[in-house]
């Protein structure tokens, strides 16, 4: 093994702001009722600017909310067992199971009762996400709306019929929100929120792109903490401010070779979601001089990239940067539909596209290895993994490893087995404990 001198490193200054953003968001959910706000529940990678068009409607992202349950394995197990007891099986989306369990058992990781929403909006982007709130509506009697998010196949060019379909659903969602809340939709807030949302997503993509640098300025575990604003509240101007400052800081780290891991010798890409109940997984490799530098999932969910036929990701331009001025609701809705339908993440629900994207990211982020999480609790992101793994090894000669677990269910995680596999893999890469 070649011994390199250590890079300099230092804590990320933006970390405190990220924690504060997260704490504020969850505190707002806890106090929503006493402040007389309506509470909505949405979904990750969502159209926050639409929800923000209703004054006094606070919405939360259930995936992020239940992840806060999952960092406490005991609490997570209680929730999951409550869902099990109602007959929900172990194999489907872990976030949904945790959310159902918290609802049935009246659990709130931030204190107080389960945050019963007044309304729920979901989107069908995988096999079951569109069905998320059917049992919730049946249990709580709340109104729900489902956006049927089309897969634009074949992937390019975007078909007008698909854009029309998505745009018409956004219009319906707005009308539905007005009807169930009894409040008028504010188009000005919607327009401003959309500029912010797109800017937030572009900034996140640009920050992810900066992690192509060697040494990596950020490690994946830290990135999960920084990711929060774009996936839960991207239309919030504070999210834009946060990522603007973060990008500057990351750029500074790149320019000055300030590493996330001083001993960086090996860069790894992670595929799919992390086991939230065992985030130490991401730190464990550091004693070998290895660092996780990102994942296709975290780059593209909440991040706005374009992808070319070689799998090269480049950040999109936000509408203001493109010189686009929205004049009315129709224009924004149409723009949003096209923006959303060209999200790279959803293009990976085609095996060849996922191979091309993963190969592009492995190459451009200078990864020495890829670790695939065969996630029993998210079969959407597990799509095509075995094919992708074989292709990465064959076409790039980059060694890969897989581990099977669940992003939410601690009962499905065999710690000693996974760690043994991980250490063997790292040794196979020529690394040893430093």
């Amino acid at each position, binding site marked *: 093994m070649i011994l390199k001198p250590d890079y300099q490193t230092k804590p990320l200054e933006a970390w405190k702001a990220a924690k504060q953003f997260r704490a504020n968001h969850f505190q707002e959910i806890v106090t929503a009722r006493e402040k007389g706000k309506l509470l909505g529940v949405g979904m990750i990678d969502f159209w926050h600017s639409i929800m923000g068009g209703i004054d006094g409607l606070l919405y939360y992202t259930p995936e992020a909310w239940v992840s806060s349950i999952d960092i406490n394995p005991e609490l997570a197990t209680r929730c999951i067992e409550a869902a099990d007891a*109602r*007959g*929900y*099986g172990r*194999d*489907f*989306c872990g976030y*949904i199971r945790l959310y159902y369990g918290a609802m049935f058992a009246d659990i709130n990781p931030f204190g107080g009762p389960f945050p019963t929403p007044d309304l729920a909006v*979901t989107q*069908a982007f*995988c*096999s*079951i996400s*569109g*069905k998320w*709130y*059917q*049992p919730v*509506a*049946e249990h709580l009697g709340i*109104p*729900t*709306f*489902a*956006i*049927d998010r*089309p*897969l*634009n*196949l*074949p992937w390019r060019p975007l*078909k*007008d*019929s*698909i854009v*029309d*379909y998505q745009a*018409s*659903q956004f219009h*319906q969602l707005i009308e539905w929100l007005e009807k169930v809340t009894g409040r008028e939709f504010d188009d000005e807030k919607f327009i401003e929120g959309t500029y912010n949302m797109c800017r937030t997503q572009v900034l996140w993509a640009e920050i992810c792109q900066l992690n192509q640098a060697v040494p990596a300025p950020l490690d994946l575990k830290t990135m999960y903490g920084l990711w929060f604003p774009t996936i839960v509240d991207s239309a919030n101007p504070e999210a834009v401010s946060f990522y603007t400052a973060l990008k500057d800081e990351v750029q500074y780290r790149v320019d000055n070779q300030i590493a996330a891991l001083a001993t960086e010798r090996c860069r790894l890409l992670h595929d799919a979601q992390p086991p939230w109940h065992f985030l130490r997984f991401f730190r464990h490799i550091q004693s070998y001089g290895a660092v996780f530098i990102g994942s296709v999932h975290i780059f593209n969910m909440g991040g706005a990239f374009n992808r070319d036929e070689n799998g090269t990701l480049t950040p999109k331009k936000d509408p203001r940067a493109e010189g686009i001025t929205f004049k009315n609701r129709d224009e924004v809705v149409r723009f949003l539909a096209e923006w959303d339908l060209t999200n790279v993440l959803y293009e990976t*629900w*085609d*095996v*060849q596209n996922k191979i091309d994207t993963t190969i592009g990211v492995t190459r451009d982020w200078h990864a020495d290895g890829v670790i695939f999480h*065969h996630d*029993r609790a998210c*079969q*959407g992101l*597990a*799509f*095509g*993994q*075995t*094919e992708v793994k*074989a292709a990465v090894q064959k076409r790039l000669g980059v060694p890969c490893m897989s581990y*099977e677990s669940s992003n939410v269910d601690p009962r499905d995680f065999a710690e000693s087995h996974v760690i043994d596999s991980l250490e063997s893999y790292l040794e196979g890469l020529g690394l040893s404990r430093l």
Partner: protein
Amino acid sequence: MFEKFFEVIKGRHDYAREWKARTGRPVFGYMCTYLPEEILYAADILPVRILGSHEPQDVVEPHIHSMFCSFCRDVLGQGLTGKYDYLDGITMGHTCLHIQQAFSSWQMHAPVPYSYYMWVPAGTQKPQAKDCLLAELQGFRASLEEWLGRAIPDEALDNAIEVFNTNRRLLRQVYELRKSDPPAISGAEAMGASLASMLMDKEEHSRLLEAELKGLSGGRNGGAPGVRLMLVGGQNDDIEFVRLVEELGGSVVIDDHCTGSRYFWQEVVPQKDRLMALAYRYLDGPPCPTKDIEGEHLRLGHIQGLARDYNVQGAILIQQKFCDPHEIDNPAIQRVLKEEGIPTLFLEFDITIPSGQFRTRVEAFLEMIQMGIE
């Protein structure tokens, strides 16, 4: 009864090969039931659904996860081992990611001259979904026409719609016969008729089915009345399991399966725009759980209605292992059936099933119903 149908199911590849040799026309495989076969039929193509083989395989592991639905793995396994080497094309209408991966991997590793993936809206209750599907159908038709080098005339579509509607009406008649007590035909026979319809030339299937139905016009005693059962689930094509249930004293009188009633329940209502007529038919029928996403949970009312119409005493919920769309629906289905006073038995199916274990569980379930134990 229905022996010819069972022969076709068992010898499905021989049937398709023989049809191809006899007619000189292409054979396409399709996955899931949201791909309008009428368009293929109008193009003089025989559509055959890729069903389960129920044979263990060891080839899919490098391509598709072991935690993906067993049916999808079985489908891919058959493609990779060349069981469908006579196909000229494969197609599918979007339902779930598991079958999509089977399709995608099949395209990559067992390429055929033609393949087409068609997206199908999940928001079946949204009025604009019809327009969206119409555009997808137009794209599919155009793609086929380009491959064939000729147009698919509207008249051919009219004929295909009529042929398929006739077949659907006949299959509905078969199911009607199961309302009597004892039912005039068994659940295994009904399943055989439905599965064979997915594999055969529809006109030939209809001729055979019509003859069988005429033979039944005087009525037939299906034997001693059994416990009237409903099967609920997805791609259940396991006739042996239905036979097992009926040997044990159950009478399978109705199902909500895409290999059963959901396949033919809805007819196409002709209209000037033939493809729009198809769009209505494919979106308005009893839905697959992936096509039932709105607040009004359509499957619940439909299943409840079937249970009443067929005087069901118990229901067996069959789930392909790791099939998450069905898994998320099952607790609600169990609840609404319980409200009807109908007990349920949940069984998880794999490519092969543990028949000894299932025998014990089904026996216990039937005894429980017979004894009136809740």
